[in-house]
């Protein structure tokens, strides 16, 4: 397999789902089983990603494979230089692992949907949209430049819009789709501005070229401050897409979409795109930018975790859990634990997809009941769903032998090390608090859904285990939540292939003194490690890593066991509390809720984010828009009509003037002449004698006058 073959495969991976989308969209009406085409397409795509993953990691583990072409070219006369905007592919370990994850989950969701969506009026259309989504998502993952990423970023936005609002007859569904698109757009405007800043500075959108130029000392407006701003603006895109505080409000609403869609888009892949973006632009993030990112991540981890405690909709609990876990990853990136963030992104994708599909299986069995307070006892009816759900929950709670334990532990370890170096102990505190809350709300969910007595006897009696096409994806995904896919050692992933061979923290391009102090390159030692030498040449050789200071390595090392034991402890505590409240019922949850009513209400009402936004931003926009419409109608157009009115007045005045004064004068003259004529008429008698007398009389006068002169 040559590099060129790999690029060919990547092109096929990108465009096959688009073919599926177009085919099913156009022929979905005529061919009843058009969806089978889409499913075979996605299966082929998945096989291709597996081939790609295997070949890339086996033969080119340290190489970035790039292929590009000129998309927009503005040529001109010699005076102003040509402009070329390139698009292209980048295959590095990050992208091949990610594309494999996307294709795998997408395929499983396709298969799951065969049964889940059965009987829907727009069955084929649904699969077409899934194809569109897979295409857009692949674009984000495979691209080598920020512009193409933005393009596909918007395209996943639209496929998400279509799928959230799939049941468009429900107002709440179409509202949610619109809200998701608009909130994302707010973040995207920030990202777009960041892209503008980048292009303005580096005249390219390509990641590698940006990094190379930056490492050589080119900064936006030659200032580190603006570099921080650029990084944060790009991060705005991630805040929108990955539903980070304060733009997280769209994700819970997005649960209006069909459940398999929630699994694919709103848990495993699209929402992770924000984290993926931050991974991609990691080399340009300054210490200050990273710190703010860490704060946003921590807030996004804590707030939704507290909300998830009190929600009763099974999907809402999982949705808030997703926001919280994404916050975890973002916080990890912020504190410098790059590898663990990406690791968690992958492990989370699998177990969260498993949880969502599991909830889909429950909802399917319960005839579209989503309220967990109306469930209970389903363990007996849905044993397979229960088992897979339990494994995935254990992974999410961070219990040993699961993948989640390894990645979550890594993140906690990273925050711990960061705190010990910089003194920001709130980050690990947030991390451990969230770990406990997560374990608690997940086991609350499991106990209420699967244990105890069934609360709705009728629905319970009709519940049945899901068919094979729904069970198979659950099994596959829960298997992927076990440690051995990532490392042979169940308690420490550092030496495993995922972290030591596949994923490397990238070399930073940020100037030394704008970095965290522990990420500064030790110049003397790194020259010998060919660190600096590599930064300056533009070859696309991977395998370079952030050179962390000795202190950091040591801190990470020291943090390992304390973080592990502490995380185990808090997870166990969370689970125990869940059992005390909901299984053994030693303490009444309702009574506790009544005792701390304000806190309970805050959590139950989602911290009133929607209410606050509606009262401020939405109200302001609608208010100004109404005001401007009034202004336009009455003032701007009023001015125009005013001019018209004044003109009409003027002309009617001129009209009066014309008819009374000007014409009056004319008439006066005429009248006067008429009057004269009236007098003179007397002389016109028509009798010769009179005329003769007049002539003689006149002659006398004339002669008399002549005589006097």
């Amino acid at each position: 397999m040559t590099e060129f073959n790999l690029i060919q495969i990547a092109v096929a991976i990108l465009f096959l789902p688009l073919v599926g989308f177009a085919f099913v969209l156009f022929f979905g009406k005529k061919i009843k089983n058009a969806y089978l085409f889409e499913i075979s397409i996605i299966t082929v795509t998945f096989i291709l990603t597996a081939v790609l993953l295997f070949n890339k990691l086996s033969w080119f583990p340290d190489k970035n494979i790039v292929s590009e072409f000129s998309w927009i070219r503005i040529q001109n006369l010699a005076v102003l230089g040509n402009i070329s905007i390139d698009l292209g592919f980048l295959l590095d370990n990050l992208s091949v692992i990610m594309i494999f994850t996307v294709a795998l989950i997408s395929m499983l969701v396709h298969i799951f949907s065969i049964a889940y969506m059965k009987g829907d009026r727009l069955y084929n259309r649904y699969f077409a949209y899934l194809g569109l989504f897979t295409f857009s998502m692949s674009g984000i993952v495979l691209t080598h430049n920020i512009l193409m990423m933005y393009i596909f970023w918007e395209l996943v936005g639209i496929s998400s819009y279509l799928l959230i609002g799939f049941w468009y007859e429900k107002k709440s569904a179409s509202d949610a789709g619109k809200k998701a698109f608009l909130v994302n757009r707010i973040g995207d405007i920030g990202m777009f501005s960041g892209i503008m800043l980048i292009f303005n500075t580096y005249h390219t959108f390509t990641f590698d070229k940006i990094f190379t130029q930056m490492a050589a000392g080119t900064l936006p407006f030659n200032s580190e401050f603006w570099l921080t701003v650029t990084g944060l603006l790009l991060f705005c895109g991630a805040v929108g897409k990955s539903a980070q505080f304060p733009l997280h409000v769209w994700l819970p609403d997005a649960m209006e979409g069909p459940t398999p869609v929630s699994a694919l888009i709103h848990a495993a892949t699209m929402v992770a795109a924000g984290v993926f973006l931050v991974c991609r632009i990691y080399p340009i993030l300054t210490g200050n930018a990273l710190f703010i990112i860490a704060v946003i991540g921590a807030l996004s981890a804590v707030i939704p975790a507290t909300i998830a405690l009190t929600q009763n909709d099974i999907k809402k609990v999982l949705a808030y859990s997703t926001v919280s876990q994404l916050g975890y990853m973002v916080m990890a990136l912020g504190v410098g634990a790059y590898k663990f963030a990406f690791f968690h992104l992958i492990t989370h994708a699998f177990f969260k997809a498993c949880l969502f599909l599991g909830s889909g299986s429950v909802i399917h069995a319960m005839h579209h009941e989503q309220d967990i307070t109306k469930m209970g006892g389903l363990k007996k009816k849905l044993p397979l769903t229960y088992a897979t759900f339990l494994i995935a929950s254990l992974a999410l709670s961070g219990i040993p032998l699961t993948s989640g334990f390894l990645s979550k532990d890594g993140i906690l370890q990273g925050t711990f090390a960061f705190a010990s170096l910089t003194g920001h102990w709130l980050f690990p505190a947030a991390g451990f608090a969230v770990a406990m809350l997560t374990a608690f709300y997940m086991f609350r969910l499991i106990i209420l859904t699967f244990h105890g007595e069934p609360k709705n006897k009728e629905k319970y009696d009709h519940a049945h285990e899901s068919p094979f096409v729904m069970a198979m994806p659950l099994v596959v995904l829960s298997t992927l939540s076990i440690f051995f896919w990532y490392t042979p050692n169940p308690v420490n992933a550092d030496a495993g292939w995922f972290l030591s061979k596949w994923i490397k923290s990238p070399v930073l391009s940020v100037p030394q003194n704008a970095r965290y102090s522990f990420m500064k390159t030790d110049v003397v030692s790194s020259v010998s490690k060919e660190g600096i030498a590599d930064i300056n040449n533009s070859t696309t050789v991977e395998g370079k890593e952030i050179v962390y200071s000795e202190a950091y390595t040591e801190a990470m090392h020291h943090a390992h066991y304390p973080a592990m034991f502490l995380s185990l402890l808090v997870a166990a505590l969370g689970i125990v509390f869940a059992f005390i409240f909901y299984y053994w019922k030693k303490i009444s949850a309702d009574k506790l809720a009544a005792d701390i009513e304000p806190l309970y209400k805050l959590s139950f009402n989602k911290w009133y984010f929607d209410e606050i936004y509606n009262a401020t931003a939405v109200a302001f926009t609608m208010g100004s828009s109404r005001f401007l419409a009034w202004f336009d109608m009455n003032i701007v157009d009023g001015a125009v009509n005013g001019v018209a009115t004044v003109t009409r007045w003027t002309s009617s005045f001129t009209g009066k003037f014309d008819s009374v004064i000007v014409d009056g004068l004319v008439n006066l003259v005429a009248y006067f002449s008429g009057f004269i004529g009236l007098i003179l008429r007397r002389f016109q008698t028509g009798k010769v004698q009179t005329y003769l007398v007049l002539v003689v009389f006149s002659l006398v006068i004339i002669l008399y006058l002549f005589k006097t002169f």
Partner: protein
Amino acid sequence: METNQLLSYILFTPLLGALLLLVFQRENENEIRIFGLSISVITFGLTLMVLSKFDSINPGFQFVHKVPWITNLNISYHVGIDGLSLLLLLLTTFITPLTLLSSWKAINKKVKEFTFFMLLLEVGMIGVFVSLDLFLFYVFWEAMLIPMYFIIGIWGGERRIYASVKFFLFTMTGSLIMLVAIIWLGVSAGGVVGHFTTDLVELYSVGPALAKNFQNWLFLAFALSFAIKIPLFPLHTWLPDAHVEAPTAGSIILAAVLLKMGTYGLIRFCLPLFPEAAITFAPFLSVLAVIGIIYGALVAMVQKDMKKLVAYSSVSHLGFVVLGIFAMTQESMQGAIIQMVNHGLSTGALFFLVGVIYERSHTREISDYGGLAKIVPVYSAALLIASLSSIGLPGLNGFIGEFLILLGAFKSPLLNTWGFTVFAATGVIFSAVYLLWMYQRVIFGVVKNPKMEHLPDMNKREIFIFASLLIFIVWIGVYPNTFLKISDRSTARVLIQVNTPVPREIPK
């Protein structure tokens, strides 16, 4: 066929067609329709011939045809095109047959007159884009008002008289001021080239030689006329009325072509003729453009009438074009030109689709609709694509224009602040708000209005029209180079004529 007379053939084919139309019996409505359509298709075919022979490497005017007209004033019949006019010429001759086709059923009174006026309108529009003599340009500019006046006034809605008179007077006011400026410029030419002239190619050397404050006044006179036509905030209020009252065909032409004349005029005349003044006023006009972008979008948001909503969205989109022009960078100018074409396609498509549904249900009130997705699925898909194209979704045409304009405005040394880009970019959010909101209220939800339950979906003719637009909506979105390369040399020439400050060099 002589190549250099090709433009004259394009110009006079519709005129000839209009005259021939007079011999038809007014009862033979279908024959009249077919005849009008064939004439406009032939015109489009001729334009494609021009395209095939056009040399995009050459930045100058091509297919030049010059015949003396009023010899003692040095006024001549002088036509020719460069890349900029070619794109707009293509747009004009492409849209006209589609509008005739779109009014196949909608116009059923006075078909003969309607077709006659549409063909005359096409003559006027083509004339505006190919004239290289200011006097000739002015003749076409004014002549075009008359058929449009009648199209709105005869086949329009309830308040058609108010709208058509408003449209006529508004634009007329601007034009007369421009006429004064043209004469003034022609007279001042005496001092430079030695005789009165209105020939654009000659005047290109006259304008820049004028004193600064002379330039300023002339620039303002031209710009005012163009700003009314665009329309630039706050001179836009004729537009919603004209659009709402005009028949569908009128709205499409108005949005797709007529508004472009203003922006075309800015690039063709204002910038190269009065470069110093253009640079002086660029920030001011850019501010108006950005206000227009946000203002138009916000006002569109609360409109209850679909046509009015689209009309205000035009104000917003044309703001982008003006911003692109006055940022005066290669990217932004190219973006502005492609955005002109885009707006023609997307807003043309939106007006067409509003017309399609209006023909069936006789209401344009958004609140009368709801749940159309189930009743008219093809229509719903078409409206979604048109809205997304207008929103600027990547992959469709709108994105390319907005992206290049914002990119250019961002780095523009003339505007020298990225405030313009940031504010303009918020317009992008609002456009998503008003269009998706309208879409939701019209298409999604359940059917509230029982009258709507049996609406027929788009027929083959309508699908054909939309598909024709769609091809280019996607083409420009996916591979814009085809179109960008037609005009890039011409924009470069304009920028050199304006002699903008050289972009800040960034050390590599």
